[in-house]
């Protein structure tokens, strides 16, 4: 260790620079360790889940003898083998780890096979349809059907301001519509995995690919009927999470741990990709019904909307997902009178869960789709209509949930983007192209966004960290956040290095571990760097203060290199490690009234997309995208750019090729692997992709005035969907409203084109 000490204030900044991901050099050589790469302890057994072959049914029996007789099988576990609570629901306790008397979806875990090899475990578990005896019950498979039956996983939620009905009735124009927005599979490349090792004195050490080690600790402790201090959960990194490992790593964590403790042997449960799709939920698909009243400029005067989410069979995180959907229906727009009704429909499908944006994208999508209709119906530029509705700075600046928008930059940001992307000029060029092109039609779409940052539940907005300085001057950081590729550990290391005036290579960040930092929140809601960066900064700051105090008493060390200073401080018995804690200030939230200040600040962004659509086949291609996105004062521009671009393509996939199809009678998810569920490939990345950071200090006192970046940019690719719709609309008359549903697969586009032709293609506002 030979790190020169520089005064913290005079040091070369370690934040604000484009440093590579802390594990990049390992990723590219296959040396980054994921859970399945940990060398197995001798005696390790392998587990596989036996899944319900029915979408709904009364469970009568499981032929355990047949399973026990399969080659290599060591044990078979059912619900009766769970010593503690058979539940892994994160909020509502309605989520059995293994089914007891009823199965609620096709794929629901019913039993666990533990065998001498993973292959033998999977082969035995695949006998599920032969060994599970169940009496079929009629399934409810769509959100619309469940809504019609008023069948919900949590009570309906309502967010209202003013008198929407009266405002709509009095408005010069009115439009009514419905719209369907599909769900989305996280498709983390590393599937769900847990590896449980029983330890001395009735304790267990669980390696789990999870965004929420503390919750895994709780779920495992409950399942075993143990105190929390007997369960240790560790996660060095995930091969992607995207929300899918926030709550739904729990069933695998619990199963591996229960089996390991019962058998007294290490048990690994790595789920095959098809089973991962069939067992776990994903982004909620939404159905929307809405009525909006607006003026001649397209200004919304009143809006009423039903948001019906397919929650799946249990509550999971559906209530907070719906809360965030309701709190993002406004997106960047002032809605004077609004009545929003959120329904979490209970269906016999996988329980839907967190996915990047957590309902926010679905809420914002509704208002964008509606504004697109308003602009088309009025024959006005969609940009102008959006600008007319933007939140104001002094007036028209209160959200429907009562938070004042204090940091609004949307006007300036959008103005810069449309200037740099040459919106008006390209609008004309697209029109010219379309006039001369009988088969292919181009379209342009624009999407502004505002996204609230913080957990909607105030008390989750806290974090802890530990910083150790060893006697050679090397620094080790541990914090409560988890690394899933988003670069959190890189950013936290940068913060600590910066605080201590050290180069980045002097600082290592280690695996998240419930034995180190306790009571952590999920790494979710884009808050990872905000919370853990601040906590680590606080710990580093404490250390710096101690060293400064030491130096003021021992000025002879002022010019010493860092390792010598550390040595001297150690010899003088200065504590060279510290904890740090952070709680986001100023947040409050009334869960019943859906009012308060749930967000510390807002992130902003905007995108323009250009597509070409084949009007014969419905195929499309994104030709160009221009993005300007607000990350405040970036901690690491390379990582932030990566988040924005990655979110763009991920959201583009959601709205175009990523279609989820359940069999309409059996409830079997037919799209249960990458062969059938199509996320974007390199060819789907727009050939012209201009992404820029809108750099300005975050007015809120965030970590180095940066802004969260994980989720907000998932809204940017709405511009792609709007551009496809624009291209479809070019085949109709002015004022036509193409009934394009999402995802805009070739078939969905063809249906919208056909509907325009069939309707005579024109629809005018009443």
């Amino acid at each position, binding site marked *: 260790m030979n790190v020169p000490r520089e005064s913290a204030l005079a040091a070369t900044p370690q934040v604000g620079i484009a440093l590579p991901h802390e594990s990049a050099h390992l990723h590219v050589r296959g040396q980054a360790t994921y859970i399945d790469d940990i060398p197995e302890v001798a005696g390790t057994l392998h587990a596989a889940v036996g899944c319900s072959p029915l979408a709904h049914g009364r469970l009568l029996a499981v032929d355990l003898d047949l399973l026990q007789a399969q080659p290599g099988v060591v044990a078979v576990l059912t619900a009766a083998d769970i010593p503690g609570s058979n539940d892994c629901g994160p909020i509502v306790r309605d989520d059995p780890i293994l089914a007891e008397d009823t199965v609620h979806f096709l794929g629901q875990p019913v039993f666990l096979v533990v065998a001498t090899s993973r292959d033998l475990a999977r082969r035995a578990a*695949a006998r599920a349809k032969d060994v599970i005896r169940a009496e079929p019950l009629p399934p409810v498979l769509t959100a619309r059907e469940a809504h019609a039956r008023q069948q919900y996983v949590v009570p309906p939620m309502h967010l209202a301001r003013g008198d929407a009905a009266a405002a709509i009735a009095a408005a010069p124009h009115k439009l009514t519509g419905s719209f369907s927005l599909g769900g989305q599979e996280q498709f983390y490349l590393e599937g769900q995995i847990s590896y449980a090792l029983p330890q001395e004195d009735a304790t267990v050490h669980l390696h789990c690919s999870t965004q929420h080690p503390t919750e895994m600790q709780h779920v495992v402790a409950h399942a075993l009927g143990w105190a929390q201090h007997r369960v240790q959960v560790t996660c060095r990194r995930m091969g992607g999470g995207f929300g899918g490992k926030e709550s739904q790593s729990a069933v695998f964590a619990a199963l591996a741990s229960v089996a390991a403790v019962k058998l007294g042997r290490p048990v690994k449960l790595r789920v095959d990709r098809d089973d991962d799709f069939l067992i776990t939920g994903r982004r909620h698909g939404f159905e929307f019904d809405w009525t909006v009243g607006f003026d001649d400029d397209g200004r919304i005067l009143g809006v009423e909307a039903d948001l019906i989410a397919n929650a799946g069979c249990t509550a999971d995180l559906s209530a907070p997902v719906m809360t965030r959907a309701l709190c993002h229906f406004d997106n960047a727009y002032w809605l004077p009178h609004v009545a929003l009704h959120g329904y979490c429909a209970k269906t016999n499908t996988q329980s839907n869960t967190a996915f990047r944006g957590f309902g926010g994208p679905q809420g914002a999508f509704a208002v964008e789709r509606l504004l697109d209709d308003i602009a088309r119906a009025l024959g006005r530029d969609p940009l102008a209509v959006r600008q007319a509705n933007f939140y104001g700075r002094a007036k028209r600046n209160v959200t429907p949930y009562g938070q004042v928008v204090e940091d609004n930059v949307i006007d300036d940001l959008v103005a810069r983007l449309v200037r740099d992307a040459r919106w008006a000029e390209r609008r004309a060029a697209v029109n010219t192209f379309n006039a001369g092109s009988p088969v292919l039609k181009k379209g342009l779409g624009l999407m502004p966004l505002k996204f609230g940052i913080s957990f909607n539940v105030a008390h989750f907005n806290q974090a802890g960290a530990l910083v150790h300085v060893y006697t050679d001057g090397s620094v080790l950081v541990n914090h409560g956040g988890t690394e899933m590729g988003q670069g959190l550990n890189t950013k936290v290391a940068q913060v600590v290095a910066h605080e201590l005036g050290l180069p980045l290579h002097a600082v290592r960040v280690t695996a998240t571990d419930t034995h180190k930092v306790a009571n952590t929140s999920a790494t979710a809601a884009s808050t990872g760097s905000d919370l853990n960066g601040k906590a680590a900064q606080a710990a580093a700051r404490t250390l710096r203060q101690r060293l400064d105090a030491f130096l003021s008493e021992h000025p002879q060390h002022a010019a010493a290199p860092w390792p010598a200073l550390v040595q001297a401080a150690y010899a003088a018995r200065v504590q060279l490690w510290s904890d740090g804690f952070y709680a986001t200030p100023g947040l409050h939230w009334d869960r019943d009234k859906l009012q308060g200040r749930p967000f510390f600040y807002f992130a902003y962004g905007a995108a323009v997309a250009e597509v070409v659509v084949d009007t014969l086949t419905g195929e499309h291609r994104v030709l160009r995208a221009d993005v300007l996105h607000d990350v405040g004062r970036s901690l690491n521009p390379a990582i932030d750019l990566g988040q924005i671009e990655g979110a763009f393509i991920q959201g583009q996939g959601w709205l175009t090729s990523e279609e989820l199809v359940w069999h309409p009678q059996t409830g079997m998810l037919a799209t249960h692997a990458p062969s059938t569920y199509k996320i974007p490939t390199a060819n789907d990345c727009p050939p012209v992709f201009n992404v820029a950071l809108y750099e300005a200090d975050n007015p809120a006192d965030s970590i180095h005035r940066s802004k969260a970046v994980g989720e907000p940019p998932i809204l940017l690719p709405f511009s792609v969907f709007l551009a496809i719709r624009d291209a479809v609309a070019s085949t109709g008359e002015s004022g036509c409203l193409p009934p394009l549903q999402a995802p805009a697969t070739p078939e969905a586009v063809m249906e919208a084109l056909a509907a325009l032709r069939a309707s005579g293609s024109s629809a005018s506002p009443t």
Partner: protein
Amino acid sequence: MTEGLTERPIRFVHRGAIVEVAGLPATTTVLAWLREHAGRTGTKEGCNEGDCGACTVMVGDLDDGGTVRWRTVNACLQFLPTLDGRALRTVEDLPADHPAPRAMVEHHGSQCGFCTPGFVVSLAALHANRPDPPSRRELADALAGNLCRCTGYRPILDAGEAMYALPAPAVNDDDATVAALQTLRADPPLAYRAPDPATGADSRFLAPRSLDALADAAATHPQATVLAGSTDIGLWANKQFRPLPLLISVGAVPGFKAITETEGVLHIGAGAALEDAWAALVAHLPPMRDYALRFASPPVRHAGTMGGNLANGSPIGDSAPVLMALDARIVLRHGGAERTLPLDGFYTGYMKNLRQPGELLWRIEVPLPGPATRLRAYKLSKRFDCDISALACGLAVTLDGERVTAARVAFGGMAATVARARAAEAALTGQPWTEATLEAACSALGSDYTPMTDLRGSAGYRVRSARALLRRFWLETRPDAPLAPSATQVWEVPA
């Protein structure tokens, strides 16, 4: 035992040394061997079905010139015995200063890192096989079999461009690999046998090296599973747990892969890799380039064979529609006896065909069309790359002036088998190639097929888009003012 085959361990080259494996079932995948037996966990499992590319590795074959040709394959689909006599290279085997991993770090090409080893291997293979820098589009095509959920691909494409500007070190085990591969050439043809703990029975793998021995092995063991690229049979083992007690591999027979042209007929050995077979077809029929690119991913095209695609006979196997439109014939062989059949008529029902037990699909004969024939191949799917077709078609008309003298229209995805559209063909034949004729053919398509609804498309969509593709064909080939592909296909539009 087929003559000349010797029961012995599997022998292949890894990191410049010969590795011997015995005792594992023949269906053990290369990925399982790497991760569970060799302790090489750099290669990842993302999907276990050849669609995500996280397990991409290179397999090397020694050519007659004494150099190793490396190609990417999906380690999750390849059975370990298929490595016999060949070389394996993974992400962990690249030299420390290789330009692919280095460029990926410098251009921020990894986030979660789980797909990254697969990308690095695909980039390294491209770097090895293509000396001059590819275009952005060619890079994306080369990476079509690698899924990334984090980056959005831009930085990976940047890395792919940038690696060509970095110094390229010699891969350090090249000489040793060549020497070891030469040593393996002296091994007798492989007969492999090991107990399978899943069945309690023996798991066997036979790899004859001559055409006659192959035909003999198949005829002797009519109950055996004939294995070519295992891009489908790999799934029978991995996902469906079908018992596969005896595999006869075609992969060790060099003559089975030959592609030759004689007197206007392209002869494609049934064991020719899809990559090579399609390259030969596209060389003669350039408008099929995109169709060939959309046929699976590079690793699947490297392993999979055109013969396997036809013999498997999926209703949406993308080779058959085009080959039917070309009036291709297939040659079958049983022991020493050969018979030739038109491909049209080979399929008798869903996943059923005229091939008898013990009979091998031997060769594909493709008559190359003359200048009067217009031919196109189109595919529709939710994603451009590596997606199973909702429908795929081969469309051909032969024109005498403006009159259609012959028409061959074949669709996959419209029926239980790939099949020709006789009514549409009848509506075209003898008619002027005009919009009225097109309309008549489109209308006739309705009686040619009764497609089904599934996850890839509804029956109505399939009928509508089949007509749309016929219209696109007309627009591109009509005598009067034909449209360029840049006016009819979104992937041909310049950005």
